Each structure stands twice: as structure tokens, then as C-alpha cells.
């Protein structure tokens, strides 16, 4: 109890300074939590686009972005003919724009693609897809912001397309996207005879290694990755993840410097007290516990305040209609645990120098300190 009081005493004495330190950590934790969760959600959604009803993705080896990948339709056709393959769906990704929306994701797919076959159709149906080359199917949100319904014509890029149907999906990229017949997309994006990637479902998942070997042997310019491998190794995802953690890390670093500043001031202002404790038998370790306890309390308070703020912010983002489907603000326990752990470690790291200083205080000199 006395130990706890000794830990909290200085925080109570300098309430404003303590609150600023807590706020620093809280903002860092909230920023890290929000940025990491939103980006993880975005990565997850993009992965879902690729992994829908498939287990393997085939794309061009050594490309930095799937939008630049080129897999020939002939290769896709050959792959779909392999006995181990249940189905192989080529998909061409592109970015288009309309008057109101600068960026719309466009998916060039075949009519038998599972995205079309298994979708929940709001207007029209799977059989309406690709009847005419200038037909497109819109995601529900795309239909909203383009103010379009079945039969209306929508200007996309330099062309005008007829809306053949509207489908609903929980994935923001798809829900705000446009589905074109693959041929039309190839023509629109000047990528005749090619797709961005081929999503593959095997008859037997255990054939994955054999499939990858065969791709390597038969199409040396292509690479086949299982969904989990792809999510883990795709450079864009890695860059996004690294950026998210780096942004959060910088925030925590600043929070840690705030704690270091608070703790240094704390030690300097109570140097005489530290000497009194030493003279009354406190060991260096016990002094260290008091100082580290103080910083741990600040960082734990900041972490919990930051968690509350970050969670509230994510909840608020979920309520923003224009972000529906684009932000997966689901909190992952692992992310929570890592963020809290990092905040506590930051607090402890910020207290290392002040604690070492306090532990080395010479009582005889400190007792003369006014």
C-alpha cells in the first residue's frame, strides 16, 4: 500500500504534467490501433476479393502490384484444363473514374466467375451479365453514387456503359466497384488477351505444392501462391502493414519521450525523498520499482485511455455511411495485445534513464539538495 502511494504520490503532485504524459500515450495508442486496424481490414478485404471460392492465386512473378501483373488468357485456359484444378478464373483489375467518383475499382471477369454466380443480386441476375459487350454490373454502393439502376447508362472513363444488374457484397472494393465482361475490360484497358491474375480452386487442397511446382515448370514468368502465403508476402500488403506499425511506432516513440521527460522531472523533484528512502533502508531495486511503477502507471493509464479512444473512433468510422464496406473496423485481440504491450514497453523504456539515475542517487548528497 505504501509502495503504491509512493508510486502515485508524484503523479498526484504534478497532475497536469501526468495528464499530458497519459494523453501522449493515449493518442499514440489510439492512432496505432486505428491505423493498424483499418489497414489490416483493408488488406483483409482485398485478400477476400482474391480468395473468394479459391485457394490459390497465380500472377506475374516479380511485379510490385497486381494492377501491373499480366497473365495471358491462354495460360489461364491451360491451367483450368489441368486435372487437379476444379476451376480457374481469370480476373483483370483496373481503375476507372466517373464524374463524381475519381477512383472506382473495375473487375473484368468471366460470366461463370463465382463473384457473379454466387453474388446476392439486388437488380437483375447472373444471366444478365455479359449479354452485351457494353454491359456492366454495379456493386450496390457504386449504383448509389452513380445514381444508376438496371437499364440506365453510366459514363465510365471515356465510354458509356449500360447497367445490366446490381449486386450486393459486404466487400467495400466490390460493393463500390464495377464488374465488366473480361473481353470488354481487356479492350477498355488495352490489355487484350491478358488478365491481372488467375484465382484457382483445386479439387484437392493437398495438391497445392504439386500445382505450384507445375506452374514454376510450365510458366516460369508466373508465380502461384496459396491465399495465406499471398496475404503474408504480397509486397503491397507488407508495405501497408509496415507503414501502419511505423506510424503507430512513431506515435509511441513520442509518447515514450513524453514519459521519459515526466519521469526525469519526477526524479529531480523528489531527489531528497529518494535519499530519505535510501537512508531508511530502501534498496536500489526498491527505488527502481517506485520509478518504474510510476511510469508503468502512466503508460497503462494512457494505454487504456487510448484503447477507449481508438475503439470509439473505429466504432464511429463504422457508422460513417460513405465508408461502409471500405473499412473493416473489427478489433483483433492480437492487435490489441500488441498495442498495449508496446505502450507498456514504451513507458518502461522511457523510465530506464530516470530509474537508473534515481537508483544511483547518493543519499549524502541528495540530503543536502534543496
Amino acid at each position: 500500500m505504501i509502495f503504491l502511494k509512493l508510486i502515485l504520490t508524484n503523479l498526484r503532485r504534478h497532475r497536469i504534467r501526468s495528464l499530458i504524459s497519459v494523453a501522449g500515450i493515449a493518442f499514440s495508442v489510439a492512432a496505432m490501433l486505428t491505423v493498424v486496424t483499418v489497414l489490416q481490414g483493408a488488406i483483409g478485404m482485398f485478400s477476400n476479393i482474391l480468395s473468394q471460392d479459391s485457394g490459390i492465386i497465380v500472377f506475374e512473378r516479380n511485379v510490385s502490384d497486381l494492377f501491373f501483373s499480366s497473365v495471358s488468357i491462354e495460360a489461364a485456359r491451360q491451367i483450368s484444363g489441368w486435372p487437379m484444378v476444379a476451376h480457374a478464373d481469370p480476373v483483370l483489375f483496373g481503375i476507372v473514374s466517373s464524374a463524381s467518383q475519381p477512383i472506382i475499382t473495375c473487375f473484368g471477369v468471366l460470366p461463370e466467375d463465382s463473384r457473379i454466380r454466387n453474388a446476392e443480386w439486388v437488380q437483375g441476375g447472373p444471366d444478365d451479365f455479359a449479354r452485351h459487350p457494353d454491359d456492366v454490373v454495379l456493386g450496390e454502393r457504386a449504383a448509389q453514387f452513380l445514381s444508376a439502376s438496371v437499364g440506365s447508362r453510366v459514363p465510365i472513363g471515356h465510354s458509356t456503359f449500360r447497367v445490366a444488374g446490381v449486386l450486393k457484397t459486404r466487400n467495400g472494393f466490390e460493393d463500390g466497384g464495377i464488374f465488366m465482361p473480361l473481353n470488354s475490360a481487356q479492350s477498355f484497358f488495352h490489355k487484350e488477351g491478358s488478365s491481372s491474375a488467375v484465382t484457382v480452386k483445386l479439387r484437392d487442397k493437398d495438391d497445392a505444392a504439386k500445382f505450384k511446382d507445375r506452374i514454376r515448370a510450365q510458366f516460369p514468368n508466373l508465380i502461384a501462391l496459396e491465399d495465406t502465403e499471398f496475404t503474408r508476402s504480397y509486397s503491397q500488403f507488407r508495405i501497408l502493414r509496415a507503414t501502419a506499425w511505423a506510424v503507430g511506432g512513431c506515435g509511441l516513440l513520442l509518447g515514450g519521450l513524453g514519459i521519459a521527460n515526466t519521469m526525469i522531472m519526477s526524479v529531480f523533484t523528489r531527489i531528497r525523498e529518494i535519499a530519505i528512502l535510501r537512508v531508511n533502508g530502501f534498496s536500489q531495486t526498491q527505488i527502481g520499482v517506485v520509478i518504474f511503477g510510476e511510469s508503468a502507471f502512466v503508460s497503462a493509464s494512457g494505454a487504456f485511455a487510448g484503447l477507449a479512444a481508438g475503439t470509439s473512433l473505429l466504432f464511429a468510422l463504422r457508422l460513417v455511411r460513405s465508408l461502409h464496406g471500405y473499412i473493416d473496423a473489427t478489433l483483433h485481440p492480437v492487435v490489441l495485445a500488441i498495442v498495449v504491450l508496446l505502450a507498456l514497453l514504451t513507458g518502461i523504456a522511457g523510465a530506464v534513464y530516470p530509474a537508473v539515475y534515481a537508483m544511483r542517487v547518493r543519499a549524502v548528497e541528495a540530503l543536502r539538495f534543496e
Partner: protein
Amino acid sequence: MNFVRLGSIVEPRLVLQARDVWKSYDGGSVPVLKGVDFDGFEGQTIALCGPSGCGKSTLLHLFGGVDFPHRGEIAVNGVRVCRRNLLHLLRHEVGFIFQLHNLIPDLTLAENCLIPTVAAGIDRKMAVRRLHELAERTGLSDRLDHRIQKLSGGERQRTALCRALMNRPRILLADEPTGSLDERTREVVFDLLLDLVATEQTTLLMATHDRGLAERCDRLFEMHDGQIHEPACVK
């Protein structure tokens, strides 16, 4: 006073011992102790008198292990004072009282007194029992939950006395313990101090300017120019 029987001779136990102790500050430019030899026996009350800067406080600090001599040896209860046994010394062998009470203002009287027991890991129940015992003897029983700011100067110094005696130290080191008190309070606190060390059988080594108080001790040493002189009076 306790005695050790050596054959047929009964001698008081030597608890404080300084041998050829040298100490200086500022890298040796300010010598304070110059070859001090000193013996203090168990149960005695010993006063160190002398002008400011003569080394009284320094000698106390050396016996308390909060500072170390540059040359010579300091022993408490027969054990040489060094960094290795410092914690044992501070937790069980010596208690400190200073001119300024040196209490922690945000803690209550009771909490301040319990600090040495927390440091030494003494059972809380035992510590509280001891606290009540000392508080009763120092007249602070009704002030235990009061914060230090609410106490008078005399009460603060009595609190410091309680804290110093909490772990039943064999030696009490008092550095101008009544220096910050008015004349009437000084007498009261000093009477209490002498009474407590007598009943606790604690050895008192006190640095003081106050000749009157010093003469009430069993032994009085004069310090001057870094040297300690033969007892001027022995009761």
C-alpha cells in the same frame, strides 16, 4: 547498558568504531576528517560538539553508511561498514534523525513511520503493532492518520524519531535532532529522545551545537579541525 563478560572482567560492548578515518570533499581539496579514532559503547548516549563544518555530520554519515571514508575503517557492531552490508546496516543496525525531519509530506504520519518496515520486508501486523507502541510513547497516537503538513514542528520531529526506531536499531544517529525546534519544544523532544533510547537500549550518537543538550549525554566529544578530542566529560 549491556556488558560482555570476558573472564572475570566485565566490559561494555563496542558498537561504534572509527580507526584513522580520513574524509574530504571536492576531490580532496576540502578535508573534513583527518585521521579520526573513535569508540562508542552499547547503550551510551554520545554527543559530538563542534563548530559548523568540523565533521560531526560527516562522521555520522560514515557510521550510517550513507557515505564512505577515503581512508581508515568504520565498524558498526563489530562489522566493517561497506557497500556489501549497507542494506543490513540501514535496515536493522542504525536509525537516522535529521535536523529537518525529512518526512514525505504526501504520506500520513503512520505511513512515514512504516517506511523502514516496508524496506526491510517486516510483517505488516508486527510493524503496525510496533508503530502503535512508539506512537503511544511519543504521544502521537491520535495523529497517526494525519498528513505531515498538518503536524507541528515538534510532532514532525517526534514522527521522525518513531520512524528511526521502527526497526529496533541498535544505534540511533541524530544530526542536530532539535536544531529546527524552539526552546521549549527542543527540551520536550530531547527528553523524549533520551527516554526512548534508554528504554529501547539503543546507543545514541548525536551531533549538536547545543552544549546544554550535549552535556546531558553520557559522553561528550569535541570535534575541531577534522580531529576528535578526548571526552570532555563522562557521566
